[in-house]
């Protein structure tokens, strides 16, 4: 069948089962949009900024488990995708980014709107393609989706010169992949699994440390099973939220810099850490030399380069979390039928004692506090099919602490890159992927202002996202560091000057605007937003100068955590 490269691209995307593309047009991309417009299988959503398109595709992938797709024109369109691609890369999210490029013959001439996007993105993609022969488009698309979604997932870029999209080609329906150098390992080594099981049954203070890999491999039920058969407590990373319901009695919540005191204590005192799909990030380990000094480590990860990268591992198992956990659970069940149960009661008692002594809590004083707002968002949505997304900052950490995530793919946050402005796009992407879900974005006044223009997208496509701005009038997370570690010199973190009227902004975008200033208004506002079919902006005018606690100071060990939430205080440096 003869057709243009652009049409071949669209057909190939349809063949991959793509239903949604987040994109933005431009001269050299018109040919592709021209064909997309005719597609009956793919809906293209016109965003208001390419960065938002990339973040939305990223969150779409997180919410659905499918590959997210974004698209931008050459030059500035492509460079605007960069932050979004980096974000997906850092959190191992399957995404395909398609960019237009100047004509093949003009590459390297500083032609109008030329940017070497394959070069620019080299260190932040899993792989990339510059199309040099339009007949290869079907194969390249097939490979891109395969690479993005298998092994350790990640973004793949396809850069399409304009002459490639316009040339007539013979469409190869049966294009085959040719990836001799790509062979991710899925099945864990059987002997290592046996050794791991033995080690687990010989430990006295074991902890499961579950990360984003458990979510990515759809292994939450296998992980929960592992915890339940062995009764080993589970702590999760920010990316691992949802690996086990946080209401489970074995759940310790999140560990790390802003993790719960009991999770950090459990890790620090454990004699065996079972790490699954987690990468011993510095936000998690604190100072490496004092990290879990007495623990042996079993590390299950699909990426061999993660094993031994930051910590010494005793039993490495390279493989897909779901497959390895299935094997491990089988092995453990078998072994436990023979070996007598372990004296873990003391360890459980110890953990209960820590939970009692340092619960995740905050002191209220009648003011509107961020923790209370988030608790209420959780309470109001816990029995619904709900997805929570976040911006980056204090509000994100409070969300991690006070939203008990019950299911995988329902807590969506920028972890590795920590990209402010992720909240709104991720709410949009999640809502597109999960049209029936109630979507709440827990956002900051700073983060929101980085992407507020895309409320227009919510309006255009009737996406009933609920954007909750926790307005503390600060770049609060940075302010907290200035207060604790930089002599209270609040350099360039006060957002009061120029603070927009978010209610007018809501109105301008045809969204429902609700401003909340008192605790008793919180729940009714949330309920109203849930019922509303329109996009909503809820502005919570919170007490400004709160800190996120517990906190492990940067560069310190988990043992040196600052536990206590000081009294809510009024009046800061303003």
């Amino acid at each position, binding site marked *: 069948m003869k057709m243009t490269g652009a049409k071949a691209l669209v057909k190939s995307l349809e063949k991959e089962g793509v239903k949604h593309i987040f994109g933005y047009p431009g001269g050299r991309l018109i040919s592709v949009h021209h064909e997309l417009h005719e597609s009956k299988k793919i809906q293209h959503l016109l965003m208001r900024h390419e960065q938002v398109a990339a973040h939305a595709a990223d969150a779409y992938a997180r919410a659905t488990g499918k590959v997210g797709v974004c698209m931008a024109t050459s030059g500035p369109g492509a460079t605007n995708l960069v932050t979004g691609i980096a974000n997906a890369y850092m959190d191992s999210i399957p995404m395909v980014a398609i960019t237009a490029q100047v004509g093949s013959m003009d590459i390297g001439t500083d032609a109008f709107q030329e940017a070497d996007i*394959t*070069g620019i993105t*080299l*260190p932040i993609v*899993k*792989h*990339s393609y*510059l199309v*040099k022969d339009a007949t290869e488009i079907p194969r390249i698309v097939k490979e891109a989706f395969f*690479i993005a979604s298998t092994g350790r997932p990640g973004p793949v870029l396809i850069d399409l010169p304009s002459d490639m999209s316009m040339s007539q080609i013979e469409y190869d329906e049966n294009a085959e992949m040719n*990836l*001799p*150098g*790509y062979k991710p390992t899925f099945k864990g080594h059987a002997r290592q699994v046996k050794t791991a099981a033995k080690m687990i049954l010989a430990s006295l203070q074991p902890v499961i440390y579950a990360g984003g890999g458990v979510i990515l491999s759809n292994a939450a039920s296998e992980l929960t099973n592992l915890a339940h058969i062995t009764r080993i407590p589970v702590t999760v990373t920010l990316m691992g939220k949802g690996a086990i319901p946080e209401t489970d009695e074995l759940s310790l919540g999140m560990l790390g810099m802003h993790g719960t005191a009991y999770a950090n204590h459990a890790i620090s005192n454990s004699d065996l850490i079972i790490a699954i799909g987690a990468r011993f990030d510095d936000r998690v380990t604190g100072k490496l030399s004092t990290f879990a000094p007495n623990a042996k480590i079993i590390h299950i990860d699909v*990426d*061999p*380069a993660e094993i*031994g*990268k930051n910590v010494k591992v005793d039993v490495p198992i390279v493989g897909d979390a779901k497959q390895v956990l299935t094997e491990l659970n089988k092995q453990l069940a078998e072994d436990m039928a023979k070996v007598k149960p372990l004296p873990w009661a003391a360890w459980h008692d110890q953990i209960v004692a820590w939970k009692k002594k340092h619960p995740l809590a905050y002191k209220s004083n009648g003011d509107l506090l961020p923790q209370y707002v988030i608790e209420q968002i959780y309470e109001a949505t816990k029995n619904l099919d709900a997805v929570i997304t976040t911006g980056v900052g204090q509000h994100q950490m409070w969300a991690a602490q006070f939203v008990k995530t019950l299911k995988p793919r329902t807590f969506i946050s920028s972890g590795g890159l920590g990209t402010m402005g992720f909240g709104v796009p991720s709410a949009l992407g999640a809502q597109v992927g999960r049209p029936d879900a109630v979507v709440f974005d827990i956002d900051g006044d700073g983060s929101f202002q980085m992407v507020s223009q895309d409320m227009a997208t919510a309006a255009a496509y009737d996406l009933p996202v609920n954007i909750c701005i926790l307005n503390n009038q600060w770049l609060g997370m940075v302010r907290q560091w200035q207060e604790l570690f930089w002599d209270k010199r609040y350099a360039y973190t006060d957002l009061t000057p120029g603070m927009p009227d978010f209610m007018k902004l809501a109105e301008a975008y045809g969204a429902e605007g609700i401003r909340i200033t008192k605790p008793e208004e919180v729940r009714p506002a949330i309920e109203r937003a849930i019922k509303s079919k329109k996009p909503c902006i809820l502005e919570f005018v919170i007490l400004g100068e709160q800190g996120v606690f517990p906190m492990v100071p940067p560069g310190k060990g988990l043992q040196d955590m600052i536990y206590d939430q000081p009294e809510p205080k009024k009046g800061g440096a303003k």
Partner: protein
Amino acid sequence: MRHTVSALVENKPGVLVRIAGLFARRGFNIESLAVGQTEKPSISRMTIVVDVADRPLEQVSKQLNKLINVLKVSDLKASEAVERELSLFKVSAKPETRAEVIEIVDIFRAKIVDASRDELIIEATGTEDKIAAIENMLAPYGIREMSRTGKIALARGGKKTE
């Protein structure tokens, strides 16, 4: 520690820059790099010499292995591999010193590949040590220019270079 990394890669555009990028972002200097086709035209071998400690190298090797176009990476130990380098020296050789220069060429079983009135181009192959030795010997006569291929290597004996 100096390491010789041998990588089998798909013979495609962009592969070199992906590999070089993994070294560059960590601030590792590539001392030499040689690339050429293997017995299969679709596959090239890159031989990379870097000066880097063992642990960081292990991480880079793992990252190299993850590149989609990389088929195989190995850290070759000198004792288990045949290593060669080719170099060209343009040496000043006036009538009064020419005989001495030619003697050095003979000792090292090098070759004269070009001659002019007062210069010779000498081709030498061998291990790094041998190249260094001949360079040392030629230096007093005046090395005008020099060009080296960088090291190439293959594992010895029945072992495949993997």
